[in-house]
């Protein structure tokens, strides 16, 4: 008898929604809160499905955040921050944990030519958790003021199907089924929504790994708050500023070197970062070898080489390099593969893709998350306009403008980042000379540089 009832309840547990968002990352949560914050779309029935455990961790972060900065940090462009302000999410950010800075100093590891970008608030460093927890706080705040939104975490999508009327039906691992007018894939690089829609994604792996970590600077002299980036033949290494004299590391390197670096003790790893920000690529090769053998002389060898390097600098030249790293925040090291990919389209009948589900990029320009935020902004505009016009928001007529607005911009950005990666990951002399000439010239021609800064901060 009980079995029969349970069986009935699973069969009849089909409910309707206007928008189902798969994925509770920054893109999915931003889309959810923007839809609920908009006058035109706040009455839509929106549900968000996330496979991992999400809500508890985000609420905990919101109530009592850890002392140390967590290791997944993103660089937000002014355009992204503006949008988060506009939809009322920025009010919920923990300001004491973000760092806004005005300078980026990039230099070539082979020739030492450099370029400096300066723009008030060129970027804001923010932990993923800080951003996501602010988004959740905003969503819960909107829920209290009459625009509720269902978020189901620890809930996996076991299947996506089409109903008789052509609407997608999302089947969850708890037996529930949701029939939705519009299904949005904010479900990352391997997007199941993209696969359901039969949308092809093309790209390649860079055969590089990104290593991230949170670091403490050794504060023994003055530096402006700056984002530092050095191009080494194995890939760029960047130290991006965080509050309390901390920094976020993004070190892109070959899979072999990544394995070596991840096996080192945290003390040796910190020393290797200091070496990589200053020493000659030839010296680095020798140090990588020591590191591979896990030689105990590694730390001493690096400090000896750095003291030689520092002694040669004129007093004013010290400010051309970042402060040295004192230590790692314990356990903050992690790695991820770097790839570039782009979906053939972002929309289909009752389907839209945003963020990594639509495109992935090399992190060297810190644009990945920001591109996703711009996608969300454009998609929300589209849904607002379509709602005001009484269109079916799942029809391609309603969704087309999102694709035609975002695809060309994203494609250009993916291309530029890809070329930059290829340009700087070589030590082939003619290319090195050309690029150094390029950097030096760029640095002295103000209007070209202004254009680049403008693109990066996309005001």
């Amino acid at each position, binding site marked *: 008898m009980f079995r029969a009832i349970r069986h009935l309840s699973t069969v009849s547990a089909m409910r309707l929604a206007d928008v189902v968002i798969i994925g509770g990352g920054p893109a999915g949560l931003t889309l959810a809160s923007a839809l609920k914050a908009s006058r035109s779309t706040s009455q839509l029935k929106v549900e968000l499905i996330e496979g991992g455990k999400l809500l508890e961790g985000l609420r905990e972060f919101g109530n009592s955040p850890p002392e140390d900065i967590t290791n997944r940090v993103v660089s937000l462009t002014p355009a992204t921050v503006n949008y988060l302000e506009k939809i009322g999410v920025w009010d919920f950010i923990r300001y004491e944990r973000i760092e806004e800075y005005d300078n980026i100093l990039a230099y070539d590891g082979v020739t030492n030519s450099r370029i400096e970008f300066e723009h008030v608030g060129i970027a804001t460093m923010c932990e993923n958790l800080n951003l996501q927890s602010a988004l959740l706080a905003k969503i819960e705040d909107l829920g209290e003021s009459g625009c509720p939104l269902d978020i189901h975490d620890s809930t996996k999508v076991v299947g996506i199907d089409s109903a008789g009327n052509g609407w997608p039906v999302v089947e969850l691992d708890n037996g529930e089924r949701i029939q939705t007018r519009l299904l949005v894939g904010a479900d990352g690089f391997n997007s199941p929504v993209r696969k359901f829609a039969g949308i092809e994604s093309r790209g390649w792996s860079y055969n590089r790994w990104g290593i991230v970590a949170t670091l403490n600077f050794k504060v023994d002299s003055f530096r402006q708050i700056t984002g530092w980036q050095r191009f080494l033949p194995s890939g760029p290494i960047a130290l991006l500023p965080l509050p309390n004299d901390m920094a976020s590391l993004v070190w892109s390197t070959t899979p072999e070197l990544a394995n070596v670096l991840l096996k080192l003790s945290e003390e040796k790893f910190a020393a290797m970062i200091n070496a990589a920000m200053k020493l000659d690529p030839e010296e680095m090769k020798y140090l990588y070898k020591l590191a591979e053998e896990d030689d105990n002389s590694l730390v001493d060898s690096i400090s000896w080489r750095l003291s030689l390097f520092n002694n040669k600098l004129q007093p004013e030249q010290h400010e051309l390099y970042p402060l040295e790293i004192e230590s790692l925040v314990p356990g903050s090291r992690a790695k991820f593969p770097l790839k570039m990919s782009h979906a053939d389209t972002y929309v289909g009948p009752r389907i839209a893709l945003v963020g990594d589900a639509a495109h992935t990029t090399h992190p060297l320009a810190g644009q990945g998350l920001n591109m996703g935020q711009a996608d969300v902004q454009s998609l929300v505009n589209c849904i607002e306009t379509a709602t*005001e016009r*009484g269109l079916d928001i799942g029809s391609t007529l309603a969704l087309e403008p999102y694709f035609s607005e975002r695809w060309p911009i994203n494609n250009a950005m993916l291309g530029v980042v890809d070329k930059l990666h290829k340009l700087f990951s070589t030590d082939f002399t003619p290319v090195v000379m050309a690029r150094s000439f390029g950097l030096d010239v760029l640095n002295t021609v103000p209007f070209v540089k202004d254009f680049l800064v403008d693109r990066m901060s996309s005001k």
Partner: protein
Amino acid sequence: MFSRLSVKSIRPLVSFRSLSSGLTSISPVEQSHFNQLASSWWDVNGPQRILHKMNLLRMDFITNTIKSHLVLNDYNNMVNVAEEEIYIPGFDVGLLDDAIADSVLQDQETRRQELLRGMRLKCLDIGCGGGIFSESMARLPYVGSVKGIDLSEEVLAVAKNHAALDPILEKKLSYDLQAVEQIDESLEQYDVVSMFEMLEHVDYPAEVLKSAIRLVKPGGWVFLSTINRDFISWFTTIAMGEYVLKIVPKGTHTHSKYINEKEIEEWFDKNPEFEVKESKGCVYLPAYGWKFTENEHVGNYFMAIKRVTK
């Protein structure tokens, strides 16, 4: 030049009574043309794409018209004093300081949204075809119900089948095989009566207009769109649209049936109960879509006419 809507028209108007069957507002030729289009009506990338795109402009035109003619401070019907204290200037704010103007505009917009939220408009869509406009209208929160009527059984079947796909439409949208003159005005009155891309397909447009405006509630609206009878419209809608670019199905238009904006305006001028409130031209740009123009006397145009007296 002969006016299509005047009594001296080259094709003499028959009186309402003489339309014995009531279904003669559209010629059999026109009807069979639309029947052929039925199956692809809802394919937004198919032969009716240009109509789907035009629908976006219709919706903008209606929403903007209704919103801009809302009375923000109705002193005659003030219910309580508290409301009177919140004075929202209804005048042009262009002369004010930017910050003040912005905040006044925002207050106005908020007030308009409030008023819209309270409305449940009853709409009649004459010549609804496959229901592109009827469906959009029915999805708006401030629309209570939409009835679409047409003379072609085939396209109505398409409209009904398509509406059944979307659960939100179930309670708000209905379709009927009916001529406008068959509707009894003592039983059915509407806030919005629409005739989009329709007058240029009927044989006796004045009769259709006359039948349609009977059904408008006092304070209600007539929205229509059709095409001026000029060289430009022949060139764009027939020569280019149907024959060169082939973005409009061949045989959709008959140039002699087009009606000038001026003719409709003059027709309404004779009726003191109605006022033409808005008139807007529009043009199709192949790479862009439909766009409003400043000249309603050339090519396609939209009109909004309000029933002002009781």
